[in-house]
C-alpha cells in the first residue's frame, strides 16, 4: 500500500484501518490545519489530461460533446507499452494527441509528449486514417487515489456507444495463485478477464478464481463492467519485471483478436523496433 510520503509498505494488518490513531482520527472532526494540508495534497495529486491544440480543437468543435470513439486500447506498464509500440503503433499511421499529467510518490509525468521509453509517461495516440481509434500507453504509476480520477477524465471525453476497450498489462508471477507451485509452471503466460458485454472470442484462457487483478487495469475493467462497455483485459504473468523481450512477445496472440486485427498490418519490422527499444532502454553498468 502506498503512502503519501514516498515509501511503499506492505499493509501490516488486514484491519480496515491500519493504525489505532486513524481509528481515533476517523471519529474525530478534522482540525482546520489538517484539512488545509489534505486539500493541498489532494490538489497536488489531481490528474490532468492535456490534449494537443489540434485535437482539442476537434473535440471542442463537436460542441462540448464527447468525441466518438470506437476502440480504446490501453497498455499499462513498460512491457505492454513496448508491445503496443512495436506491433501496433509501428504498423499504422498514428499521431500523439495528448498526455496525462500527474504527480505522486512514484511518478511525475512531464508536460511534453516527446518521451524516452525509460520515462514514466501516459500518452494518447489516434489512428490517422480512423480518428475514432484511440490508443494509450501508460508506464507511469497511477496511485490508488488517482485511478478513479484517471477513469473519469479519460472516459469522460469519450462517447461510449459502440465503444470497445482492450487493456494489456503485466504482473508478477508471484501474484498468481494456483494449486501447483509457481516455480514449476512455465512463465510468462497470458490470462484474460472480460466484462459481461464482451462477446468476442478470446485468444487465451480466463483468469481463474481466486486470482484477482488490481490497480489501473482493474479500475478500467470495473468502469466498463458497471457502464456496460465491452472490455477485455489481457494480463501477462511474468517473472521479469523490467522490459523483457520474452514477456513482450507473450502478448502476440492478442494481435489476432478482433479489436487489434484490423490495426496490425505489417509486423515484419517489429522485431527491429523491439530490439532498438530494448537497446535504448538497457541500463549499462559501469563496466560496459
Amino acid at each position, binding site marked *: 500500500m502506498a503512502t503519501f510520503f514516498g515509501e511503499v509498505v506492505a499493509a501490516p494488518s488486514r484491519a*480496515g484501518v491500519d493504525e489505532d490513531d486513524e481509528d481515533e482520527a476517523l*471519529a474525530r472532526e478534522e482540525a482546520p490545519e489538517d484539512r488545509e494540508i489534505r486539500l493541498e495534497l489532494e490538489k497536488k495529486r489531481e490528474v490532468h489530461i492535456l490534449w494537443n491544440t489540434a485535437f482539442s480543437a476537434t473535440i471542442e468543435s463537436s460542441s462540448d460533446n464527447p468525441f466518438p470513439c470506437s476502440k480504446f486500447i490501453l497498455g499499462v506498464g513498460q512491457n505492454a507499452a513496448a508491445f503496443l509500440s512495436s506491433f501496433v503503433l509501428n504498423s499504422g499511421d498514428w499521431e500523439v494527441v495528448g498526455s496525462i499529467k500527474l504527480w505522486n510518490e512514484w511518478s511525475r509525468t512531464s508536460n511534453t509528449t516527446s518521451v524516452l521509453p525509460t520515462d514514466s509517461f501516459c500518452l494518447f495516440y489516434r489512428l490517422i486514417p480512423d480518428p475514432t481509434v484511440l490508443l494509450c500507453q501508460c508506464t507511469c504509476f497511477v496511485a490508488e487515489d488517482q485511478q478513479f480520477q484517471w477513469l473519469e477524465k479519460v472516459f469522460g471525453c469519450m462517447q461510449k456507444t459502440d465503444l470497445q476497450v482492450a487493456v494489456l498489462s503485466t504482473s508478477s508471477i508471484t501474484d498468481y495463485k494456483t494449486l501447483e507451485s509457481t516455480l514449476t509452471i512455465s512463465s510468462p503466460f497470458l490470462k484474460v478477464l472480460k466484462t459481461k458485454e464482451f462477446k468476442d472470442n478470446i485468444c487465451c484462457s480466463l483468469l481463474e*478464481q481466486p486470482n484477482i487483478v488490481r490497480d489501473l487495469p482493474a479500475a478500467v475493467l470495473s468502469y466498463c463492467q458497471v457502464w456496460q462497455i465491452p472490455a477485455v483485459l489481457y494480463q501477462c504473468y511474468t517473472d521479469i519485471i523490467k522490459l523483457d523481450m520474452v514477456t513482450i512477445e507473450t502478448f502476440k496472440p492478442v494481435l489476432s483478436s478482433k479489436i487489434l486485427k484490423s490495426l496490425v498490418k505489417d509486423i515484419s519490422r517489429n522485431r527491429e523496433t523491439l530490439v532498438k527499444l530494448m537497446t535504448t532502454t538497457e541500463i549499462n553498468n559501469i563496466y560496459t
Partner: protein
Amino acid sequence: MFVSCDGSARPDFKDFTLLMPAVSVGNIGQLAIDLVISTLRMTKVGYFYTDCLVPMVGNNPYATTEENATELCINAEVYAMPPKELVVLQIRSPFIKNKYRHFCETLLSWVKSCRFAKVVLLSSSHAYQRNDHQLRTTSLRYLLSPAVPKPVQDLMQRLNWRELERVAAFPGVNDDEKVFHIPGGGITKLLFTESCSKGIQMVVLLKFCSEGDNIPDALVLADYLNEWLQVTTYQQSGCSSAQSSKWKMPSSWKLLFGSGLPPALF
C-alpha cells in the same frame, strides 16, 4: 452510487434489510457476507460504484458451474433476495486513505434514499484489546442504534446476547465519560455514530478476533447473525459445529494461503 446490473431503473428495496460488512480485522465481516451470498445463492442486482475503494476485478467468486465462473466481479457489489426482503452489499477491497468519511456519507444517503428498514453491519475488533471482563465472556457483541425498535432489543436480550461495553474515555482520570472503542473495526464506529445521529436503524454484530485463518470466526459470526435474522431457514439448536456446516463456502475460498509448495522442498 448504486448502478443496477442491467442498466434499468433502481429496484425497490423499501423495507428491506441491508446486510453489509465493515472492512475490519481478519476480514470476518466480508467472509461472513460471502457465506450468506453463497449459501442463499443470491443474485447480483448491481454495483456500488465508488471512488472510495481500491479497484479490483476477478471472476465470479461464487462460481458453481463452468458457465457462471466467467462472470466478472468488482470491488463493491449488491445482491438481493426479495422473498426474504434482504439486500447484501459485499465489499472486496480496502478503503483508500482519507475516503472513509466520504464512503459512509454516500452509503448512508443511499440507505435513506432506498428506505431500507434497517442496516446490519458485520464487523470485528482486535481480540488483544479486550478488557478483563470481555476476556471472560463470549467473543460476540452487538450494538443497536437508538432508532432500532424495542422488540428487536427485547429479542436480543432473550437470546442472551451481550451489548458491546462502553469504556472510559480517559481511564483513571474520569471514569464517568464512556465511549465506544472498536479497535480494528475500520469504519464500524464512524458508521454507527453517523447512523445514530441520522436516525437510521443500525445493528452492529461483531466478534473479537485475531488475524490468521479467520474462516472459523466467519462461521461463528454468520451463525450469530442467523440466530437473530434466520437468513437460512434450516435451524438446528444445540451443537454449534453442526450449525456451521449448513453454510456453503464459496469456491473462491481456496488457496487463501497462497499457491502450492515447490515439490523440491520435500
